[in-house]
């Protein structure tokens, strides 16, 4: 498998491919959104504006399926950002990869002599991947969701939010704590595992050489689908968690 270049920067170890991928995803997402709203028009929207409005409608609809319609509005921006960023991140690693080969130790890229020896003096460095194929990144996203969910729960719905830890009986407290922690963990792992598996399989198919081209095409198409599904899942689960923690319906 490929190694990923890690640059030690003072006390930090910066994963270059991940950092680059995150930045590219952010920039691409922002550029797409910015292009879509370039010439905003009320009665004559451009194609891009129509597309983004369709995304807004879509996001609004599936958020409405998780919480009362009148509470949806503040979360549309969050849902849009999540789904667009994660979808673009998921696709980033699909079309191509950048791999360099090195036979020398590069301390400032994390290639130590030991690693080189271990790999038989030959290390392949992958410079390009989906940021969501890195557990550190998906953990970051899940952590953001975790913070938002519990902050909103405490802020908007304190009584019921705190009560739900002891529901239905106080002895369930440990179970509820496990559930609370498992939510962001599964969120992060699910997204990471799906995208990472996709990239691993792409790398594996690439080893087949030219014979693998049809498989690669099929798998890339499937990865496109998986990327969309995972982005959607992550976003809707976020909304479900927010709804569970922060929105208290009168009827239960």
């Amino acid at each position, binding site marked *: 498998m490929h190694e990923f270049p890690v640059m030690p920067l003072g006390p930090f170890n910066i994963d270059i491919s991940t950092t680059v991928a995150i930045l590219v995803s952010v920039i691409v997402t922002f550029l797409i959104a910015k292009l879509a709203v370039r010439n905003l028009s009320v009665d004559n929207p451009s194609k891009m504006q129509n597309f*983004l409005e369709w995304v807004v409608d879509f996001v609004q609809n599936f958020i409405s399926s998780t919480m009362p319609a009148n509470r949806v509005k503040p979360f549309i921006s969050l849902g849009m950002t999540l789904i667009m960023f994660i979808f673009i991140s998921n696709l980033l690693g699909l079309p191509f990869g950048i791999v360099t080969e090195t036979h020398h130790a590069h301390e400032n890229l994390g290639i130590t002599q030991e690693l080189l020896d271990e790999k038989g003096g030959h290390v392949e460095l992958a410079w390009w991947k989906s940021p969501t194929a890195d557990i550190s990144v998906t953990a970051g996203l899940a952590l953001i969701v975790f913070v938002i969910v519990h902050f909103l729960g405490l802020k908007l719905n304190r009584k019921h939010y705190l009560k739900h830890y002891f529901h239905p009986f106080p002895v369930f407290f440990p179970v509820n704590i496990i559930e609370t922690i498992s939510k962001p963990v599964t969120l992060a792992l699910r997204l990471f595992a799906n995208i990472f598996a996709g990239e691993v399989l792409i790398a594996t198919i690439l080893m087949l050489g030219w014979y693998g081209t049809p498989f690669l095409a099929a798998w890339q198409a499937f990865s496109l689908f998986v990327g969309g599904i995972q982005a959607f899942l992550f976003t809707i689960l976020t909304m479900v968690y927010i709804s569970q923690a922060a929105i208290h319906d009168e009827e239960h």
Partner: protein
Amino acid sequence: MGWHWESTVIAMVAFGLLYWLLSKYAFGPLFEVMEKRRQLVLEQMNTAESSRKAAEQQMEEQKAALQQARKEAYEIIEQSRTTSSKQAEEIVQTAKSEASRLKDDALKDIESEKNKAIAALRTEVGGISVKIASKIIEKQVDEKSQEQLVGQYLKEVGNK
């Protein structure tokens, strides 16, 4: 591949930044425009509704006006019919009274003419009889009796 907490921090910061940027520069204006469009559609629907109502009302008014006009026309015709029949009656009445007046006048004229003729005849007859009488008297009355007659006459005149 491994765990790098730096990547986590970078991802979180990048996502936060992206959220802020998108909210401010992309979604904010987009939501505003969508809201504006919603308002516009609502407004247009209201306008359509009110104009439909106005049209209906106008239709109603026009119908009423037409009905009114029809009624007025009928009234005018009715009025003229009564007026004309009344006038005809009047004309006939006038003609009748005129005719009777003319008849009366003619009768009166006839009467007066008759009376005149009678009077004239009487005078004539009187004159003739006087003449006849005087002719007879000329032959029979003598001087004396004539004198007596004249005297009587004068006396009669003096008495009057």
